């Protein structure tokens, strides 16, 4: 099975870059964006399958970014990732069409499972369309 193309959106540079490195090592084509606006700019230029999106970011936060992503690219699957779970953002995010809401720290195996499941869903949705 081929692998998802992943965009990691997180303002914490170290976390972001480490995650991208780990995903690349496992054979996922992966790229970083360090805020919401950058993520939207990257997505405007090339397609991605799955986005790992931090909820708490300065400026445009994860929920706002999710809203914009879903407006412009409804088929992209978004996994919300957060260090501080908030029920309100969870409800908002899930009702806006996020695929999952994961709490940091997340085991890489669990994250990979979530990415693969989200990617599979995107492929099924495209097939059904």
């Amino acid at each position: 099975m081929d692998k998802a193309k992943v965009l990691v959106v997180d303002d914490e540079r170290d976390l972001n870059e480490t995650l991208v490195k780990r995903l690349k090592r496992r054979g996922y084509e992966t790229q970083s964006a360090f805020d919401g606006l950058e993520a939207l700019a990257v997505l405007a230029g090339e397609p991605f399958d799955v986005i790992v999106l931090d909820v708490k970011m300065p400026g445009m936060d994860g929920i706002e970014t999710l809203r914009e992503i879903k407006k412009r690219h409804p088929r992209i699957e978004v996994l919300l990732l957060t260090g501080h779970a908030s029920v309100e953002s969870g409800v908002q995010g899930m009702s806006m069409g996020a695929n999952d809401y994961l709490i940091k720290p997340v085991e890489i195996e669990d994250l990979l499972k979530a990415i693969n499941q989200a990617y599979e869903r995107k492929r099924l949705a495209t097939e059904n369309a």
Partner: protein
Amino acid sequence: MPQKTPESASPSRALALAACALALGAPLLSGWAGMAAGAGAAGCVLYGRWKWAKLVRQGKAQRDALRDRLLQSQKLAAIGEVAAGIAHEINNPLAVITQETEWMEHLLAPPLPMSEQTYSAVRQGLKDVQAQVNRCADITHSLLSLARNWTPILQPVDLNTLAEDMAKLVELEARQRNVTLDRRYAPDLPEALLDPPLMRQAILNLLVNALHAVEGGGVISMATAPGPEGGCILRVADTGPGIPEQNISRIFDPFFTTKAPGKGTGLGLAITHRIIDRLGGTITAESPPGKGAVFTISLPPTPAKEPQP
């Protein structure tokens, strides 16, 4: 009707009785009456039958009309409630937007150029307007997801993991509010075929609903169990005040809410109901007296590919 059976009837009496009895729908009598009354009576018998059939037809038509009218008025009442809900939810943001735009108009009145202070106040105003517009967009988005006949995308998943993801999300806030989130996951749960993000949303809505119910402390218990014929069951119970009997049939209606204004749109349970329905499952609400509320989701072993709308 049998009490009208005569012991020894004169033809005329029999005739009258026969007509009467037939009109009242006693078919047993018709043979006897026909014989006793002779040919003259037969016409009357036929007339009686015709008359009876006509009455039945009229009765049925009347009943149907009444039923239609009742359905129509129930439908109108339901639409009215939904409309009131939408109006209420949209009116608040509209009021804020009106205020903000008036304020910005005031700020932007000459003379120009504006001060830096005014500039940042206007920017803040625009941001506030945007937030209110988003709030409205979220409501219409939720309404559309209720109205649309979307097809779920089914994937094999472990319901326990899925439920635990949402439990983790709610856990911290539950603890802060002195609420225990008790989980009992059946180890022998069969794999479920469902739409993972939608199911997560459904579970999260139930947990949030329970969290609001046990305000001030209590216990929320979430449990999974194998269902009949290879299906799965997920149950969320709370130790809150429960649901009053008169509300239990309306608990899944859109915009039906007992929460204070601004606390939840009253769409959460309606959306949950819709999701479970689209997944081919069922959801029920119970409230045993003095024991809080219990929501039970029952998922079929292999959800129908195209559940009926």
